[in-house]
């Protein structure tokens, strides 16, 4: 009972195909990419207005504010990760494809990070400079944000997969993801604070990198399981 031999694309090919499709879609709908960035910039504007614009206040709270704003912006972007695919049915095509689902989940998550996490990392120096962050600290901020947003995208993909079919998804998604993301926030923000205080900060960077590697190894399997459950 051998099925007729078809031309099944290789595993990496399918991963890239999924990622390329999502990037193309994002390119056609730039609003989805830009809105979280505007949100990030606005949250960062709210804090000096509320807490006070004095220089020492800004340098003291800067790392934390930027990190919290980035975390919230990632959450906003997460909602759309599987939603349009779920609505138009292409998610089911992913589920029935012969390729391993965790791999395809990595493809989708990678595209999501490229359209939400990476822009945040690139925009963060502009905001950081308004918070009077010195150049050397900005580098650390970008490094930690790069690793941190990767972890957040991976963790978030689990939450997005669990809530994809639900109608009251957004608030629920935040409730699921925020506790999960606390270690990333704690380590990320404090690493930048340490760098700002001229202390050794490498341990935090390594911890974030370890977290990102761990999330990359485990999260896609949970995402795949969650996708299958949500689409039963």
């Amino acid at each position, binding site marked *: 009972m051998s099925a007729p031999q078809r031309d099944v694309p290789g595993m990496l090919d399918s991963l890239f195909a999924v990622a390329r499709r999502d990037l193309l879609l994002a390119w056609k709908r730039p609003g989805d990419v830009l809105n979280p960035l505007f949100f990030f910039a606005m949250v960062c504007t709210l804090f000096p207005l509320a807490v006070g614009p004095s220089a020492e206040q800004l340098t003291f709270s800067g790392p934390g504010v930027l990190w919290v704003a980035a975390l919230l912006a990632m959450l906003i972007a997460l909602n759309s990760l599987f939603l349009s695919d779920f609505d138009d049915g292409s998610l089911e095509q992913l589920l029935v494809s012969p390729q391993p689902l965790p791999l395809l989940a990595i493809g989708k998550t990678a595209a999501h990070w490229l359209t939400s996490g990476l822009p945040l990392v690139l925009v963060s120096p502009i905001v950081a400079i308004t918070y009077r962050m010195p150049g050397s600290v900005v580098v650390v901020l970008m490094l930690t944000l790069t690793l941190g947003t990767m972890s957040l995208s991976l963790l978030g993909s689990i939450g997005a997969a669990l809530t994809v079919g639900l109608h009251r998804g957004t608030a629920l998604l935040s409730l699921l993801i925020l506790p999960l993301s606390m270690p990333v926030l704690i380590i990320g923000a404090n690493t930048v604070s340490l760098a700002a205080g001229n202390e050794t900060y490498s341990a935090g960077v390594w911890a974030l990198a370890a977290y990102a590697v761990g999330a990359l190894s485990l999260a896609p399997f949970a995402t795949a*399981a969650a996708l299958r459950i949500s689409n*039963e």
Partner: protein
Amino acid sequence: MWKWFHQLASPPHFYRIAPVFSTWLLLPGLALIAYGAYAGLFLAPADYQQGDAFRIIYVHVPAAYLSMMAYMIMAVAGGIGLIWRMKLAHSVAASAAPLGAWFTFLALATGSIWGRPMWGTWWEWADPRMMSELILLFFYFGYMALRSAIDDTAKADKASAVLALVGVVNVIIVHYSVQWWSSLHQGRTIMAEGGPAMDPAMLRPLLAMIFGFTLVFGSLLLRRTRTEVLHRERRTRWVRDLILAPEGNS
């Protein structure tokens, strides 16, 4: 052994035997708590540093221990349900969540009341244990919110089981990252390091309370699971037979 296990997994059988186990856990549990409360409040000597305020430990420690225990039960039961498709396990997980959230709240509340005279503050952000416990409470909230957001019970069971398992990995990371964070903040050293080893007269009631709380928790869990099973099986034949059966014959 396996027969017993399979029998246990059958909802009608579980429904029948749960009250028996529940009662046999409840009675010794209440006895232990009664002894622990009396001995802890009246017999144990006052602490030489904390005076009588330390006595809240007799509620605080069992509650904190059970808050984590309940989470583990929830996650393991969810995993069993996910892997072996055992329906009863999902009922256990669903019933354990509110109990666990309640014990977590109790641990936070008693810790906060204890903190007021000891540290001079209701809430101490720099204490890693308080932070981990708070985040654990958020995990419970997320778990219960996910469960109630999905209408299909079978789907809710599996989705929340995945969440609970992901949470287990993360609770450990949260614990260590919060510890690292609070060591950065150089907070006051709380609960004097290398504090005095506990006097047996203080320790005995504490152990009694821990075991007593655990037994009562087990009893409550069985009761909640039994109700959950009844609710889930409400459309099945055996429930109908049970309800229509004449009194005293069930």
